[in-house]
């Protein structure tokens, strides 16, 4: 029996675990005791992360659709077919008629290759991935404020912090092992402030729980800053030395005294003041946020407000002090770092910037497009407008994960050519012309970058199941067939190229990642030990910029016809569109069907009983789910997880997006509830 150390494939915590392998079978999982993130623990998904790997429903060979049904194909045939189709469409229309979706589930090396494939082989900047739907507002918002859109601190600093301000993050359920560090901090005497409309598990440990109404985060944060300014709790020397644009910002914040904010947010003014004072006066204060902040049409504004709060109180640039967006997917940080985004190459080097473009052109020996491409949400619009003709989707399932699903399926049907590369037959793959069987995390080498910027190695534990192939090999083969031989023999060679072209990753090479559980970027050279916390001495972009932010209400308001606010999210036992967890018996048994959390008062007034079926409708669709009557949600709000394809909540959600980040507003839409 062997135990292969690797990284959990679920959330962004990046916990270390062993896969137990016996004669080519994976028979178990156990945590790595000294791993800095999980320290010998795992969450339920981690403990059960082995089961789906050898599931009989894994895709076993390439499939080609003929007369609306799939038939088995050889790799040779499938690769040639994909290459020819893509080449034809590129010639017939233009490179920009092809869109590429990379994956936050795949390794850094694979995301880099996908980005290279889109830009150098196809010749388009139309590449994006699901970070668009989770943290694009962070990447955009923090780039302008600080110059870097990642978690500023390390996970193992959390336990020693004095104040934890958690806004819009259900940490113990969504980043359980970060939640563990938070509880440790609370046990050591830290003050925990939670701002969340729902009564989450972490909020039960909070000294102050601010239950703002969905979509009013800007008001809440502005009014906290209003208190801090008015009560003289501002760190003036820091603002003078390290930041710019304070005056313009101050003028806006002045408009949000806590008494006015209380009316909009529903949070008592006293609580706002108390939270502001505690956060501002204590050193070693860490701010955490997640989807509750980012998934709004004001996602970028929310993120900017968080950044403003940190700068105002000088809570940045020190250990245990900073602004920490918790990234969702195991490698969503890495997929962004690798430039699987329409406007940047790896390391956030802009495609429109001639010097960086020239650097990539020289190395890749191809002319590269200079105009930023389409975002994921824009790609589907472009398909419907008849501009985009083909898509290559790797390891994503937009049919379930994107807002207003029927819009997405309509677009997928309209495509001339669709390639989907995945480990299971996903709902998106059903629409494909070619389905390519890829491998899971257990069958390949590579690296994942977790939410604290830690680049860690995943290791091949078993041979690829059935006739599947690692994603990086598939991309290379298609590329070769299209006349561009990438010529990598192993993933460490790809990492070498990444290091060459990416200042953030310059010192990150596979052989350096075996000791000390990887390296945290920025890592400037092969001797650099990595960076546990960011913005020391100065911000990545020089001076930090205050950006004034005014309140904009959610895109959709409740009305007589749709009197409830629907907010969506994840739950502990499941993960995203469920392709992995719903094939894991323990996880599926726990929550086998979709449900809606509804407040007891609302349930009473509508005559809805716990566990009875209800119909939830928005302007875009209707689903029928089981009612969970609980005071976790406040009156007037319901919560539905988005993991279930049977009752896909994204049939209801509003596709309205943030104007700059293009992130959809998953957290607020208006619905009507009827008992069935």
């Amino acid at each position, binding site marked *: 029996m062997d135990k292969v150390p690797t990284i959990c494939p679920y959330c962004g915590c990046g916990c270390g675990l062993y896969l137990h392998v016996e004669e080519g079978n994976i028979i178990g999982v156990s945590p790595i005791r000294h791993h800095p993130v999980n320290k010998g623990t795992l969450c339920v998904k981690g403990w059960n992360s082995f089961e789906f790997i050898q599931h009989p429903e894994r895709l076993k060979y390439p499939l080609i659709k003929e007369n609306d049904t799939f038939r088995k194909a050889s790799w040779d045939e499938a690769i040639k077919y994909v290459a020819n189709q893509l080449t034809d469409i590129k010639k017939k229309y233009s490179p920009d008629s092809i869109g590429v979706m990379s994956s936050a589930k795949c390794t850094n090396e694979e995301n880099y290759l996908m980005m290279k494939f889109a830009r150098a082989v196809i010749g388009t900047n139309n590449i994006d991935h699901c970070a668009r739907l989770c943290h694009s507002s962070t990447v955009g918002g923090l780039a302008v404020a600080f110059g870097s859109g990642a978690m500023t601190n390390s996970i193992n600093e959390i336990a020693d912090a004095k104040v934890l301000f958690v806004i819009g993050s259900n940490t113990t359920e969504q980043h359980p092992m970060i939640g563990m560090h938070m509880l440790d901090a609370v046990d050591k005497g830290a003050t925990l402030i939670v701002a969340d409309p729902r009564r989450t598990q972490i909020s039960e440990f909070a000294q102050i729980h601010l239950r703002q109404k969905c979509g009013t985060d800007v008001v809440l944060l502005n009014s906290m800053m209003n208190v801090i300014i008015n009560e003289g709790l501002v760190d003036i020397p820091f603002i003078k030395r390290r930041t710019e644009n304070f005056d313009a910002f101050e003028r806006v914040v002045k408009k949000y005294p806590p008494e006015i904010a209380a009316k909009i947010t529903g949070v008592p003014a006293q609580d706002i003041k108390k939270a502001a004072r505690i956060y501002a006066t204590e050193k070693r204060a860490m701010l955490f946020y997640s989807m509750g902040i980012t998934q709004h049409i004001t996602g970028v504004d929310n993120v900017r407000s968080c950044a403003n709060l940190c700068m105002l109180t000088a809570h940045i640039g020190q250990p245990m002090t900073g602004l920490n967006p918790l990234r969702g997917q195991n490698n969503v940080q890495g997929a962004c770092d690798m430039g699987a985004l329409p406007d940047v190459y790896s390391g956030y080097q802009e495609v429109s910037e001639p010097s960086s473009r020239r650097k990539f052109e020289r190395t890749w020996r191809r002319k590269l497009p200079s105009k930023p491409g389409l975002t994921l949400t824009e790609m589907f619009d472009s398909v419907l407008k008849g501009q985009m003709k083909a898509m290559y989707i790797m390891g994503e399932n937009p049919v379930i994960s994107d807002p207003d699903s029927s819009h997405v399926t309509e677009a997928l049907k309209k495509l001339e050519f669709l390639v989907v590369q995945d480990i299971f037959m996903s709902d998106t793959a059903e629409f494909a012309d070619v389905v390519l069987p890829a491998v899971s995390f257990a069958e390949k080498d590579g690296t994942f970058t977790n939410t604290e910027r830690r680049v860690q190695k995943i290791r091949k534990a078993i041979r690829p199941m059935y006739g599947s192939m690692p994603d990086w090999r598939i991309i290379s083969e298609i590329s070769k067939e299209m006349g561009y031989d990438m010529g990598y023999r192993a993933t460490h060679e790809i990492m070498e190229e990444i290091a060459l072209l990416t200042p953030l990753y310059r010192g990150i090479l596979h052989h350096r990642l075996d000791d000390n559980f990887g390296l945290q970027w920025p890592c400037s050279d092969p001797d650099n030990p990595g960076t546990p916390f960011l913005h020391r001495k100065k911000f990545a972009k020089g001076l930090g910029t205050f950006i004034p932010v005014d309140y904009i209400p959610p895109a959709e308001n409740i009305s007589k016809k749709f009197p409830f606010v629907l907010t969506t999210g994840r739950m502990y036992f499941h993960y995203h569109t469920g392709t992995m967890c719903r094939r894991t018996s*323990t996880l599926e048994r726990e929550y086998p069907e979709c449900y809606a959390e509804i407040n007891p008062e609302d349930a009473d007034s509508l005559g809805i009983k716990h566990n009875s079926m209800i119909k939830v409708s928005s302007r875009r669709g209707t689903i029928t789910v089981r009612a969970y009557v609980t005071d976790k949600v406040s009156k007037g709000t319901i919560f539905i997880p988005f993991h279930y394809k049977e009752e896909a909540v994204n049939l209801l959600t509003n596709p309205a997006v943030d104007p700059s980040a293009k992130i959809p507003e998953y957290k607020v839409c208006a619905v009507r509830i009827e008992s069935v």
Partner: protein
Amino acid sequence: MGSIYMESLILAKSNLSYWLRQLRKEMALIGPLKGENNDIVFKTVENIHEIILDCPALIPSPKEFIFPQKEDMFRFSKDKVENLRNDKKRLIFGVRSCDISAIILFDRFYGEKFVDDYYMSRRNNTVFISIGCNNPDPTCFCIGLGSGPFLSLGFDIQFSDLGDRYLVEIGSTNGMDIVKKFIHLFSQPKKSDYDDQYEAMLSSQARFEKRINLENARQKILFEKVDDSFWEGVAKRCFECGGCVYECPLCTCFNVIDRKYSETEGIRIREWDTCMFRGFTKMAGNIWPADKKVMRTKRWYFHKLIYYPEQFGKFGCVGCGRCTITCPGRIDMATIAYRLKVGENERKAD
């Protein structure tokens, strides 16, 4: 397994690797080896000199070798059912005393009344060589339960490190079987060897940091009626990861799942299951008898502290400290026993 046997011998340390190498020709050799970074894990031994004996109780417990996390039970096809019992010979070297104490109870649980053939098949073909702990972890508390650091019976073979040699105590016929063939490598112990073993045990006992009295906790629950708010407080911190159960060398629950490869072919497997999940007691027709987390956390402690003693005369805990390491909510056995002892209010005043 096998019947009880008692004999003591001396093995010079210089003879150990030769002996293991010979044994490895007949059975798979598994031992504590370096894992990622500073970790030590049980793996198949490639290089005998890499075995690390000076380590605490390892994660996960060696129950994984006799009751694996996932075990294939049957392979079925249209007209055939194949029983996939594992009967490979294995030697697990370097197990801790606490784990042997747990295996003794496992043997009773799976062997009494109805004999669990999957467990028994593995157990009959596995020999454990345990080692008296010279170096307990800060999380260890076997000393308060009599399940370590050294055992006087119940093991197949127990090693005691006496510097340049091991005192080898053989406690079962299965243990004797692997010594007998190589008896020329061993010598008879002198009285001073037993004195040295006693000295080693005393010095080990002195190193324990935790003194946990589970009897105290049991009596508190039985006779002083612990308030439900206490258990509510425990449940509030539960992450529902199942780690305590997965790691526990004494947790025995499993789930049975069928997996189809085609319409007529597939396998029936069993997997570790945990009472920490609401689905554990789920019944058809959307009935969830243990929907509240507090019912489940309480049940685990009651099982270990109250019902195990009733059924087996021993606590359902051997003090290995694994739940202390693996519980993200810090509501492990040692912590709860301590909190039951001091009471909630005093703890807050600390």
